[in-house]
């Protein structure tokens, strides 16, 4: 139950106007901290929901694939420069953000563990190339692609994403080259 409480507290904290506006004023914090924290909030509260509706969940999301597909699309959606921009301009988009991302966390909670290694790796590699691509887009774009943020902020975000890409590459290299033979002894 502790986790759920943390999740709700986190969500409320993120909602508080000074924190919310403060985070949104810097592009990289907006995308790479606020959005993931919203997902985290959903993930923390997800336990209860998944347990409560276990039957439905199991029936419709037995292998985790439907859930992870939704996760993929929603997160992709929030990586577009436009959505980030519009979250600041339109209240409806802001609202959608605070609903959809905790939902992503919840879906993640109920899907990730169910996926086979293959599915996990595939999703992981997908995000790897997505971060790489968006990093390139944000760094290289000669024009300002967000109306609410300066071009330099855009570049900072791009480098942030590149950093994540590099971390992801390093961690997968670490994973495939370290020994896992003991884990298989069951």
């Amino acid at each position: 139950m502790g986790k759920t409480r943390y999740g709700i507290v986190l969500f409320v904290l993120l909602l508080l106007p000074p924190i919310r506006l403060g985070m949104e004023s810097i592009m990289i914090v907006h995308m790479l901290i606020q959005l993931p924290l919203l997902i985290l909030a959903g993930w923390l509260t997800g336990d209860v929901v998944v347990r409560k509706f276990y039957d439905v969940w199991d029936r419709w999301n037995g292998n985790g694939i439907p859930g992870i597909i939704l996760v993929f699309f929603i997160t992709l959606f929030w990586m577009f420069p436009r959505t980030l921009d519009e979250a600041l301009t339109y209240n409806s988009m802001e609202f959608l953000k605070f609903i959809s991302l905790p939902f992503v966390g919840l879906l993640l909670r109920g899907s990730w563990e169910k996926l086979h290694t293959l599915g996990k790796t595939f999703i992981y590699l997908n995000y790897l190339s997505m971060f790489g691509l968006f990093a390139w887009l944000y760094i290289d774009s000669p024009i300002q692609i967000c109306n609410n943020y300066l071009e330099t902020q855009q570049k900072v975000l791009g480098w942030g994403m590149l950093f994540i890409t590099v971390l992801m590459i390093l961690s997968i290299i670490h994973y495939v080259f370290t020994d896992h033979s003991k884990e298989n002894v069951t």
Partner: protein
Amino acid sequence: MRKNWRNKVAILLSVFAGLLLLYIGTDGFRAFTAESARTYQLMKEKPVFPEVTLEDSNNRIYPFSDFEGKYVMLTFIYTACADVCPKLGMNLAEVYEQVPSEFIGENIVFLSISFDPKRDDPATLDKYRTYFGSDGETWRMARIPDQTELDRLLEEFGVIVIPDDYGNFTHNSAFYLVDKNGVLQEVMDYTKIDKAADTVISMVEEEAGD
């Protein structure tokens, strides 16, 4: 196999829902940035240029409706701008060059509007216009002294201007073409000079041919 039909349905549904989200969120995969979405929206709405009073580099004061009966090629700038605006001005100058001279001033007027009325007084604008070879008559540079009028125009034409702490502005840039009745006809990519010129010329020619 029978057991997990729901799962299969759910996969299809989630793919569908995901694509739908992306489709709606990008206006049918057309607009991935707020800027392109804005352009797309503007072209659909075709707003009318609101009534504002301009003060140009020659110290003349007149309402926008003075341009009635002519096409107006517009851009929004501020003179202290160091990055986009000079480029915007240079590109507009190239479009100006490409438009056949018999139309200039007769069927079409070029206009750069400053959204920084405090600093961009007529004297400043008069100096600024010389950088781009603007004659101040067929290509005018003007400010809108009244802040509420200015804000309304920016709002209507979807121009976003954010001041920063150093007296600079972050803003979006494009060419705007307004027709004889003050209705916005085209929002064009300011980096595609030839394309913009072609659009302008064909519109004006069509008009002149009538």
